[in-house]
């Protein structure tokens, strides 16, 4: 459970986040949408404790973020960042084992190895276990990183998972796989917060959506409540059309024809 209250972050006079408040609950996938520069990445960095907020509070499981010891925080939340380049190459299984680092001192236990195996199975990368990470395709690399992140909180049922544009640069199949995994993790009880660019993906997979503009909340709620032409125009400054789609209760968003 994440509680964010009156969160602001200033660089000089410029407010990148301006009095943002929201909750994210266990078992829920919260998608964050917004244009470039809306403050999504800033929010993510504050949630991960990469930066300190100028004002406002963040609590995870009723404990202030800043009060956590780094090791304990690592067992409470895992983060999948946008850029994951390795300076030296590791075997896939070694990389996934890194997710267990907060849990053992010098030697991993049998339990750690079991969790690594299960996380790899879950992300469908078992066949890549002995491959060199740097030789994998972008989609495979992302799934390996996700396996590492899952391994980190595998045995912490109340943990949070932060995903920063996890589908960036992937083809449709991989995008789908990653989002299905995120969905599955939320269903298992994790609190998943995910920055996304694709509105349709967000409404398809998320329980709730929050839209940001210039560091402020435009809308927050169930997909069906917030996905409408006004909110999208307000958030992205584009005109869209909504199309009902069979089998989904939330309409699809398509760009409106440009009228000359």
């Amino acid at each position, binding site marked *: 459970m994440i509680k964010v209250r009156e969160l602001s972050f200033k660089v000089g006079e410029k407010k990148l986040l301006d009095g943002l408040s929201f909750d994210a609950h266990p078992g829920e996938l919260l998608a964050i949408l917004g244009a470039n520069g809306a403050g999504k990445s800033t929010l993510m960095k504050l949630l991960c404790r*990469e930066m300190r907020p100028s004002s406002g509070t963040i609590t995870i499981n009723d404990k202030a973020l800043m009060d956590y010891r*780094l090791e304990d925080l690592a067992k409470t939340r895992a*983060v999948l960042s946008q*850029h994951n380049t390795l300076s*030296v190459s*590791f*075997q896939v299984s070694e990389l996934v084992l890194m997710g267990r680092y*907060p849990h053992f001192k010098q030697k991993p236990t049998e339990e750690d190895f079991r969790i690594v195996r299960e996380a790899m199975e879950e992300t469908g990368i078992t066949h890549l276990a002995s491959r060199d990470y740097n030789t994998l395709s972008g989609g495979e690399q992302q799934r390996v990183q996700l396996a590492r992140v899952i391994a980190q909180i595998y045995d912490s049922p109340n943990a949070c998972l932060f995903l920063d544009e996890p589908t960036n640069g992937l083809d449709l199949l991989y995008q789908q796989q990653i989002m299905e995994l995120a969905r599955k993790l939320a269903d298992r009880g994790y609190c998943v917060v995910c920055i996304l660019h694709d509105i349709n993906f967000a409404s398809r997979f998320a329980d709730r959506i929050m839209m940001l503009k210039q560091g402020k909340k435009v809308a927050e709620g169930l997909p069906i409540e917030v996905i409408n032409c006004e909110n999208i125009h307000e958030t992205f400054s584009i005109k869209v059309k909504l199309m009902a789609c069979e089998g989904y209760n939330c309409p699809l968003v398509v760009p409106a024809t440009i009228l000359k």
Partner: protein
Amino acid sequence: MIKKTGYILLSLAIVLILTMVISSCVGAVPISFSELMSIIAYHTGLSGQQHFESQQAAVFLNLRLPRVVLGVLIGAALGISGAAIQGLFRNPLAEPGLIGISSGATLFAVVMIVLETKIFKELTGVLGFYALSIAAFIGAGLTTMVVYRIAMRNGKTIITTLLLGGIAINAMAGAFTGLLTYMATDAQLRNITFWSLGSLGGASWPTVSALLPFVLIPVIGLPFLAKSLNALALGEAQAMHMGVNVKVVKILVIGLATMAVGASVAVAGMIAFIGLIIPHILRMMFTADHRLVIPGSALLGAALLTLADLIARTVVAPAELPIGILTAMIGAPVFIYIIISERNKSNP
């Protein structure tokens, strides 16, 4: 994986012991293996019989053994600090010599010697043999911090900046060292030349004991940071997400690595490329996992430097080749190879 790491480290330790034995036996006064064992048994009190000539024992105990031990210590120091610095800078090309850390250490040591400053005299009074090592350690530490500041941006090293910064610092330290040679006396000048080429010729038990703590502390301490260095390979933010206190790890790695580099420069001068090629060989043959590379670099570095010193002191006997020349002759081609393979990796 852990078991495999254990076996690899064990094999490396055996290789190291073999090179130490060979290096102890070969030289102007040859000692056979059985004679060596007899000397050791006699002097440790295991055996009362003397199956060796007393001259052999004297050479072994007073000349060869301290030299072999010095080679082991310096090789271990250079290997392990190279591996740690590469992990910290997130770059397999970072090496204490290339990025200016060794020349910073040299400059401080030379300043101390040539200027014979009052502080240094007082330091020597208090710290004895350790004074020069500490001066070099401070020089190494300061340059590392400068280079780190120059090369890091948003948690990443920019390799061209890092290497160019290294060139600049090497040039600056070289210029000041050169300036000091004009002020140096003949005896001091010989010392300075010895620094720029590197040699284990100054080996004696006092130098060994002066170096020992500066190598032991990093060799024992750095393996405990291996996990954190692995996490750092993913990036500083990612390491923090995994619970690594990046700031503390940075300070510890820089402190321990420069301690090793500084002290070995103070005792043996600039010995290039060991810190670059040893971790690279381990990564290429086995894994990039720092839990192997860090301790493995200490063992393999020690073995390689002992071997290089054996060659340096026998190949042009009775004269002696500065070991820095030898390591550069082996190391530079390997360096070129690494550059080419890195280039091919980025543009296949």
